[in-house]
């Protein structure tokens, strides 16, 4: 295995919800797909997530929320990334996100929302197709 560019993804759970089974499963799924996954764990503030993305030079930030806080946290992460000059980081989200919130989140800069039942292959494909690398 020679060194080459690998997709680096931050997996984070913003806010206070403690349900990380989905996030952990996806972390493994992404690692199995050959990505380098930085799992930051529960109870992350947007600042912590963006700091991690900055220091890790991440290509992707994956946010998971099951507690209904996505409308605040997801756009806030996108905004902070922009403020740090990390516009090229792909932000994707998942969890329990009501259909009617999706359009607004996408407008705020979240590239995709993956709800329950999404095939993991589709998520991987989306990331691989949309990740930008200079």
């Amino acid at each position, binding site marked *: *295995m020679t*060194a080459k560019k*690998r997709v680096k993804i931050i997996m984070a759970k913003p806010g206070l919800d403690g349900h990380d089974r989905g996030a952990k499963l996806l972390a493994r799924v992404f690692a199995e*797909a050959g*990505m*380098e*996954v930085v799992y930051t764990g529960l109870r992350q*503030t947007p600042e912590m997530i963006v700091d991690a993305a*900055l*220091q890790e030079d991440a290509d992707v930030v994956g946010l998971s929320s099951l507690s209904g806080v996505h409308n605040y946290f997801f756009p806030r992460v996108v905004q902070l990334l922009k403020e740090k000059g990390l516009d090229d980081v792909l932000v994707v989200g998942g969890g329990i996100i009501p259909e009617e919130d999706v359009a607004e989140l996408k407008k705020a800069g979240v590239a995709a929302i993956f709800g329950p039942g999404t095939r993991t292959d589709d998520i991987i494909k989306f990331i691989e197709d949309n990740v930008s690398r200079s």
Partner: protein
Amino acid sequence: MDDLVAAVLQGSVKAMARLITLVENEDARALQIMGAIYPHTGNAYVLGITGSPGTGKSTLTDKITSILREREQTVGVIAVDPSSPFTGGALLGDRIRMQRSSGDAEVFIRSMATRGTLGGLARTTNDVVKIMDAFGKNWVIVETVGVGQDEVEIAKTADTTIVVLAPGLGDTIQSMKAGVMEIADLYVVNKADRSGADELVNEVTFRVEQDAHIRKAVWKPPVVKTIALENQGTNSLMEAIEEHRSFLRQSGKLRKNRREKTRQETLALLREEISRNVLERVLGNGRFDALIDDIVAHKKDPYTSVQEIVRTIFPEE
């Protein structure tokens, strides 16, 4: 690229993160980058933390970082976790235990996957240490992958190497073995509230005593008991680190050790450069495959063939 190096030297975190990626990916510009970085290195103190999985390396790293921050020292952390030998992917989970340090602008944490390198570190970990050093971090803490017995690369990188142990992972003979147990400047018995902790302290202390009889050494590694999660013993650990650091400085060993490290590193670079050059020429002309055919058919042997190849490239004067 020069801009990126300049930005790192001026303190841009984003530039440092980017530069580390280029070096980690062994980008074509990596050697040139490191050449520009090197003159600005040599100021950071490098602390290595190694030990079996689950002994508490990340938590200890977090606590040491906090203590250093209280002393207004800036800190870079490199946390290495293994890559999958099958997919090349990696789950890098050390940041989870470093929450107290994240959010502090003076602490820079970088996770690294081993990408197929054995020995406890990634191939480019050393270079990342140098980048953080040049950036101006006072301390760089390198946490290895969870190691078993033979992963001793960290001792070639760190000024002070800490081997973290926890109770319940083996009998006396384990602590007598070669390898990881030999590289400690300092032993930590973490999770000291668990049963078996005192026995482990005794075993390790016994080993240290034995070592003192077996070989001449001027530094006797202390054994420190900690309960990292509860922040117990961490100040004593920091004191022990400082003691070792003073010892290295006063005895002149810091300079001596660093010279040896530089020698090893330069040799490794030379080896790489030679082998890259030679392999390019050998594999470039297609004759190598023909040679393999001959060897498989037992018309030639690999031992003599290799000597012949090298002799054509470096003809004897």
